[in-house]
């Protein structure tokens, strides 16, 4: 079963989160610059004469597609590395993925999200990568 993590984090926490994910062997990820707001609402900017409110803040969204058995460990790594305790730390969304296909090899499903040296290989869940089907 494949899952998608969409983690919305602080801009300045991207490197910490990336390092924490590499640490546990999550190799593939996509990063988006997004704008939005949650409970924090927004911030006050100085402006030309007096202040004004801005409710669209720049955030980073990290997308990871992974096997369900790696989900908890990955979420734990993000929670630890993206945390400051202040409002605006972000959210993590998890959803199911129907299918993944690696374009170069045609591999599908679990095979398609495995990389040499990744979390599964380190835990001995696979011996070596099979050359596509």
């Amino acid at each position, binding site marked *: 079963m494949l899952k998608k993590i969409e983690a919305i984090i602080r801009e300045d926490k991207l490197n910490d989160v990336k390092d924490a994910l590499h640490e546990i062997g999550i190799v593939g990820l996509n990063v988006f610059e997004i704008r939005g707001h949650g409970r924090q609402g927004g911030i006050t900017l100085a402006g030309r*004469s007096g202040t004004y409110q801005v409710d669209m803040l720049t955030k980073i969204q990290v997308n990871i597609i992974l096997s369900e058995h790696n989900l908890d460990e990955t979420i734990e790594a993000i929670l630890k590395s993206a945390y400051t305790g202040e409002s605006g730390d972000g959210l993590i969304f998890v959803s199911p993925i129907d299918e993944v296909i690696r374009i170069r090899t045609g591999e599908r499903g679990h095979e398609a999200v495995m990389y040499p040296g990744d979390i599964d290989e380190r835990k001995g869940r696979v011996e070596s990568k099979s050359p596509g089907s």
Partner: protein
Amino acid sequence: MGNAINSGDTAWVLVSCALVLMMTPGLAFFYGGMVRRKNVLSTLTLSFVFMALIGVQWVLYGYSLAFGDSIGGFIGGLNYLGFSGVGAAPNPAYAKTIPQSLFAAFQMMFAVITPALITGAFVERVRFKSFLIFSLIWATLVYDPLCHWVWGKGGWLGALGVLDFAGGTVVHIAAGFSALAFALAIGPRKGFGKNPIEPHNIPLTVLGAGLLWVGWFGFNAGSALAANGVAVNALLTTNTSAATAGLVWMLLSWLDGRPSPLGLVTGMVVGLAAVTPASGFVTPMAAMVIGAVAAPLSYYGIRFRDKRQLDESLDVWACHGVASTWGMVACGLFATTEVNAAGANGLFYGHPGQLGIQLLAIVVTMAFTFGVTFLVAKLLDWSIGLRVTTMEEEVGLDISGHGERAYS
């Protein structure tokens, strides 16, 4: 006539001419940073195009209407059409020691930047064709006559003894109150007042303000039309007023929250606009007072405009109109013939009548520029339309109006 060209004076005014020309690109970037990214090319173009438009208009007939032989004190005659008779010989009515052609070129740069200042009022929604027609009409019916009244030989305001060293009335009050009139005629940008319309690139604005300050040395010190003590005094008062207004504005914005960079550079430009009419007539200490008072006037001018829900988008009225109105008043207070023997004394130097003359010039300039601009803008709105369509406005004027995008 015995008017010998002085190479020092000529060299300084040549340099000043280049400095004032640079202010128009400076202004373009000052404004360009404050609009949304979809309108930055449009905003740059609104300013830049005047270097082309007035660069032609001024040679063809603009200079003649402003500085030609006066017809009743109201408009220059056509004797300088196509710069005919405008050559190396000085025109002693304007500057005894530099070629008249140089005086005409220097004045051209003022005629270029003044209508460019107005564009801050209607960015992000004006129809380019209507804007061009408006601009040519404005240069012809507003700038050229007003310039003649104040600076032209025989102009009626100048003859009354109005002190306006480098364009408090002709440039800044004219631009500010025309901006107000145009903003009322064209109406607000879509979504104005509902969501904040944020500046897309404040560094561009900061860069533009820097270019403006440097250029302003040419604008004010160059207006001495000679390399002399009056020019140096103008440079000093210009710098002092800009510095003071920048500091005061920064403090005001700090008291309201944080010392805003956009606020700091706005304050500097306000200080420059305020001191412009007085720069060649007052002392550096008076310039400090001018800058210190100008900053809160414009700062709360913006608030006032904002509270009235008026989308005079980049605050030409508050920054140039209000500041230079104060500068013209201050000229009537602080002017002294110790600084400039060719000037006059103000109230604090025993000549209260000067204040009355200054106030008259202010009121006349406001009424004339606001009135004609509102009329022309409304006529254009009724006939060919001032605004782009809602769809074009939403897409942004860069793509819908000019077929280019700034950032790809």
